[in-house]
Structures are given as structure tokens and as C-alpha cells.
């Protein structure tokens, strides 16, 4: 089965800052997590793939359409759902009106079918009961779900979600994970996040980006395996560790190159992620 998204050599510089440097990716159905520290280029990559900004170099296709041409860009957009990092809302619109407006902008022109689709996605994100409420009266979590509904309306085949769980409380985040998992069924979802738990729970694939380059591209298990034998426990913080922090048990969990005879621990995805960022701004201290 051909990949939904195929990108090679994507590069983009903002002045002297390297936002993306020779990024190559192939994305297929399922949820792909995009991990990386602040300034790693995650949002830039997402904006390039969502056709919001063109790459300076490199090329990519979505479902075989090349967005470097006007016609190709339109075709990509016809198959795209995008939730930006800080989505805007029209506060005087109801949830239904806002998603309906986005649906029109996605060329869903048959009124009856469009309204059915808007109701469907609002039900999907559990906002069916408040669809007539003005957005300014909805909570932050509800607004985020409105934005997700707007991204999903029209059943796009490629969905780009830029840090959708930021600012949500744990319960809302759990709800969102469920929604994203469901969205990933039969679609290609690219999820940018800081939360390694999101990736561990949702993604069948993870890409780590740092300094505009791809540091890792594989399954979450493979990322976790990067830290096998490189996590250990000690009574004091090991000065040789790349990262280390005091745990609830009072001992230190160290990540890096363990000293001989160290008390090795089972690695997590976060450990693998931290080690992948070695060299980047990734040190965690207690």
C-alpha cells in the first residue's frame, strides 16, 4: 500500500535559523507521533505538510498530489484535516456554525449532507449536546474538541494535529487520546506533542525531531529499546548521567551510559526519547 505522505529532503530556514534540515518521511495509515523539544521544528514541519508554508527545498506528496503546484495544493487540501497549535475560534459562532463554516471552506456544498456531517463529527467529539452553544461559552477543553471536529469534518485522509493536548487537564487529555485513536482508524494522523505518554498510548510510529532534523523514526517500542541498558538507579545523582531525577522512592533514576555494576532499570519511551536527543537541549535534572 503506498504511503499517504512521502517527503524527502524538506528544508526551511527562517533568516539564520534552521527550522527544517533535509527532513524525509513516509507516513501511512495510523497515528504517528512527532516528538521534539521546543524549537525542534515540529510546528514548521506540520505547517509545511499542511501546505500552510512552502518548503525552501525538498518535495513531498500527499496521496500522490504534489502541493508545489496550485492544482496539487488544492488537491492536498481536499484530503487534509488540520488542527493548528493555537486554533482560533469565532466566539459569536455556535459550535455547529463554526464547524459548518469550516465544512463549507472544505467544499462540502450540499447543505443537507454537510449538516449531517457536521452533526456527525460533533457527536464524534462528544459535543452533540452543546452544538447550539456559542463558542465563547464553552470551556477550553470543549473548544479544543470543536477544533478537532473542524479538523475531522469531511473525513480527511490525512490529519495533522499540532499539540492538541496542551493545556488540557488529565481527564480531558484522556478523552482526547481516545478521540485521536479513533481518528487514526483508517486515516493517517500526524500528531505533534511534548507528551511521551501520548505517543506511548496512541502511536504506532514515532518520529523524533531536533534542530530541524529527524533523530529517530520507528515504532515506540524501538524508541524505548534505544534506552535498553542505559537506565539505572542510584542513591545519588550520577554525575556521568545525561539526565537524572529523584523518583518517589527516594532513589535517582539516571539515563545515559551507566557505570559498571549499575542497578539497571526497565527503560521507558521517555528514556529512549531523552537519549535520542543527546546533543540537543534535552537534559533533565532533579
Amino acid at each position, binding site marked *: 500500500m503506498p504511503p499517504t505522505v512521502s517527503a524527502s529532503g524538506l528544508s526551511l530556514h527562517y533568516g539564520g535559523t534552521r527550522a527544517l534540515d533535509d527532513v524525509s518521511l513516509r507516513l501511512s495509515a495510523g497515528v504517528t507521533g512527532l516528538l521534539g523539544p521546543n524549537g525542534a521544528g515540529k510546528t514548521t514541519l506540520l505547517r509545511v505538510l*499542511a*501546505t*500552510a508554508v512552502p518548503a525552501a527545498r525538498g518535495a513531498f506528496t500527499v496521496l500522490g498530489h504534489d502541493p508545489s503546484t496550485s492544482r496539487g495544493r*488544492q488537491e492536498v*487540501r*481536499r*484530503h*487534509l484535516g*488540520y*488542527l*493548528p497549535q*493555537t*486554533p*482560533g*475560534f*469565532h*466566539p459569536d459562532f455556535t459550535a455547529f456554525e463554526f464547524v*459548518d*463554516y*469550516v465544512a*463549507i*471552506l*472544505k*467544499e*462540502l*456544498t*450540499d*447543505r443537507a*449532507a*454537510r449538516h*449531517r*456531517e457536521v*452533526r*456527525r463529527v460533533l*457527536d*464524534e*467529539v*462528544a459535543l*452533540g449536546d452543546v452544538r447550539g452553544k456559542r463558542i465563547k461559552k464553552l470551556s477550553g477543553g470543549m473548544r479544543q474538541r470543536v*477544533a478537532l471536529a*473542524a479538523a475531522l469534518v*469531511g*473525513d*480527511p485522509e490525512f490529519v495533522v494535529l499540532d499539540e492538541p493536548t496542551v493545556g488540557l487537564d488529565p481527564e480531558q487529555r484522556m*478523552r482526547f487520546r*481516545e*478521540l485521536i485513536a*479513533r481518528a487514526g482508524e483508517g486515516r493517517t494522523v500526524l500528531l505533534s506533542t511534548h507528551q511521551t505518554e501520548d505517543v506511548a498510548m496512541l502511536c504506532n510510529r514515532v518520529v523524533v525531531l531536533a534542530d530541524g532534523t529527524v533523530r529517530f523514526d520507528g515504532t515506540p517500542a524501538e524508541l524505548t529499546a534505544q534506552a535498553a541498558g542505559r537506565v539505572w538507579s542510584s542513591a545519588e545523582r550520577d554525575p556521568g548521567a545525561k539526565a537524572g531525577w529523584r523518583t518517589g522512592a527516594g532513589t535517582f533514576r539516571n539515563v545515559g551510559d551507566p557505570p559498571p555494576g549499575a542497578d539497571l532499570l526497565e527503560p521507558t519511551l521517555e528514556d529512549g526519547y531523552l537519549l535520542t536527543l543527546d546533543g540537543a537541549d534535552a537534559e533533565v535534572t532533579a
Partner: protein
Amino acid sequence: MTTASADRATTPTPAATAAGPRDSWAAVFALARFEARRLLLRVPVLTAFAVYLTWIVWRTRDSFDGFPALQDADRATQGGPLLVGLAVLLCANHAVLRSDRYGTDRHFTVLVVQPWRRTVAHVLSVVPVTLLAAVGVAGQFTWEALKPGAVGNGSPAELLVGPLSVLLCGAFGVLLGRLLPAPLAAPLLIVFLLLFSVFTTGFGSWARWLMPVVGEGGGSFNLPSELLGRPAAWHALYLAGLALTAALLAVLLSGGLRLRAVQAGVAGALALTVVGAVGQSRGVPEETAEARTRISVTPEKVHRCDERDATTYCAFPEWAPRTDDWAEVVDGVRSLAGPGAQDRPLVVRQRVEARYGLDNDPLLTPSARPDEVTVGTTWGGNRVPEFAAAVAGVLVTGKEEAVHGICDGRMVTVMWLALADLPDPVDALRSVRLDDSDTGSAIVVSQTEPLSMSAAHTELVRELLRRPKEDTAAQVRTNWAELTAPGVTTDRVAQMLGLDAPDVDEDEEECS
């Protein structure tokens, strides 16, 4: 989420996203419908429409003016829609700035409908409001046209000005949003336009025609429709061209720059605007000016005359249907007059001073021909007792130019004859006098030279109007010769009509 999961099992399958270039336009129209619905429900637009409709009802109710000249009634439809237009300007601008203001641009730029098509939708969203304004204009004009006393002909071009003003304001609101994405820009533009409209009134006629609605001074008379000299069709073309130019410029500014059709459209719209602007700035055509002079100096050359009993009514063709209203007044005055006056041949001749256009409000000179009464081009309200006074004056003095010089007791007879047969004579007495009173001395308004009533005349006329009409009529017929004799004193008139002599200062009784 359990509920949501259950819902998902029963919710319908997703709608297929439309594809292909034709659907982009369908999306534009769908977006236009969405924006139009929101525009129509905005508080400023609803308020403006409410005020507009109230104004229409107030203007067109029967008691305001039951005798419109349709060539002026069409122009009266233009001011109201402008209020709606200003509200549309504000709200259309607000809608265009919405994405920028609330940060949805980041999201919407990656959606299929491009910004320039969204601008087209914003422009199209103004069309339903424009059509509603057109319905208001049509309703107002139809209401006027259906009045039994309506005469003349309306101009479709004048009727288009109101709706075109709304369209123009909407297009300017959209253009301004694309030019200057600041919320204060639209209110400031409105202030600027108001100042500009005040400023242009001091300019020559070409400059004031740059504004959407161009009123006229004067207003107490009507001209035949072919003599108005207003470049209404050119002005409608100018407004349509300007609205189209603003709309297409907005499309250009939002990414349509590379579209050849839009470029060509801007050029075409600009050409229409220029053609309209040049056409409307040429002033009154020479042939119209000549026709105005002809109708002012020798109206009989264009009159259509209708003889009824002893009276011949000569009217401009558009006013011929008004003969019945004039005849009713003439017959009423004649029925109260003395022997000889009831069936003396009279000519009621319609006249207008058209040489100065609508900008001035000149008085007509009284007719020098015997037994000829002047009637103007307006009717209803005060015009009825004014005409009745002119008819009575001619019946008493024999010549219209002699009427304004009456200062003796004949004034009592003239005013009683004029008012006694009207539905509310005392109210008519008040309304025909310049000070709207029924005591003391006052000027009596006339379509030609004004008359003057002394306090003694007023007192006697008021007393006579309170008495049974037939009693006074009998006394008038009996004493007709003496009542209409030049120099008859007011005291003598009171005596002949069975009234006490008026209790006023002697000075007021003197003819100066």
C-alpha cells in the same frame, strides 16, 4: 466517551468532500449564503432595517401627502437605504476582519476555498441585503403610486440608487477590510464620507454627484418628469461601476491578482465608473433648459385642457388626472358665491417656474389675465386652501393679480368663500396662514403673491366659519355686489353678514 462511542456506531457515514473546479464556486455560493444570513441577523443591520421600515411607513401614510408626484417620490426612496448601507458597511467589514481578529487565518489558509474566493463570497453576501432594500424601495414607491392622487412618472434609475447605495457600501466594507485590516477603519470611513458629503455641497453640481444620494433644494414644487434634468441613469451607472470596482479590487487584494478575468473586470468596472461620472457631471442638457423656459413662459403650449361646466382646466399632461381634485374645490367655492360668479367662465391654468431647476423655490407671478386662476404642481395639505383662496379671490376681484392687493372688507368674503366648503374650515384657516393661528393679523400663503389678513378680517372670518354655511351663503348671495365692491369696509361687511363690528384698533383697518 462511552456515549460518544455508542453514538459513533449510529451516526451516519461521512459526507464525501466535493471535488473539482465547479464545486469551488458552489462552495463560494454556500459561503455567501452563510455570510448573508449572519449579515442579516447583525444588530446594526436589523436596527437599520427597523428604522428604515418605520421611516417608510411614516413617510407614506395617507395623512402625510396623499398627492405625490412620482417623479419626486422616486427620489424620496433614496435616503432610507443609505442608513441600511452604512450598517452593511460596518458589518461586512467586521465579517471580513473576523478571521484576522480571532486568529483563524492560520487554519483557514489551508482549507480548500482560497482567500480570493472567500472575498467573492463576502461581496455576494451583500446581495440579499441589497435585494431587501430594493423590496423596501419598491414597496415605498408602489405605496405612493397607488395613492389615488398620484401623478407623474417615476424613474427606474432613481429607484435603483437606494439598492445600489447598499451594494456600494457593502463592497466598500469588504474592500476596506482587505486594504486596512483595522476595526476602526470602517467607522472612520463613515465619518469621512459624512464630512465629504457636507464638503461637496459647497462644490459645483459635478462634485455632489460623486456621493451616492444626491438631494435637491427647494422641494415645494414638482417639475414635469422630462424637465428634472437629473442624470439619474448616469448616476446609477456610476454607482454600479463603483460598487463593482470596489468588489473586484477587494478580490484582487486577496489573492486574485493573477486572475485575468478579475483584472479585466476591474478595468471594465473602472471604465463604467468613469463613463457614469463623466455622464452625470455634464449638468442640465441644453434642450432641457430650453424646455424649462418654454413651460415657464408659455405653459399653454404644452397644456392639455378640459372644460367642465363654466371652468376650463389646463394642466401639464402628467397632471391631467388631478383635474378632478381641482374641480371639486372650484365647484365648492362657486356654490357659495353670489349671482354671476357661480357660472362665470374661469380658467384654471397650471403653471410652474422651471427655469431655475429644483435648486430654487421661486414664487409664481399672479396671472394678469381676467378670470384665470393659477394652480401649481403640488397638491394636498395647505395647497388646497391656498388654491381655494386664489379661486375665491378671482371670483371676487376678477383678476388674480388684483387679489394680493386686497386690504378692505372683501378679504372677509374671499377667505370665507375659500374655506367654508372645506372639511375642517377653521383648521384650514390656521394652516393657510403663515403663523398657523386663527387670531390677529397674518400673511395668507399663496402659490403666487401672498395675501394679508388684518385682525378684524380674521375675527370675522372665524365667526363666519363657526356659523352654519348655508345661512352665511344666503347672505353672501343677497349682498354679493356690495360685498365684492372695491373699498367696502370691514364694518360694512360685518353688518351685511349679520355680525358685530370687529373690536380692533382703527389703525389696522386702514389700507396702506
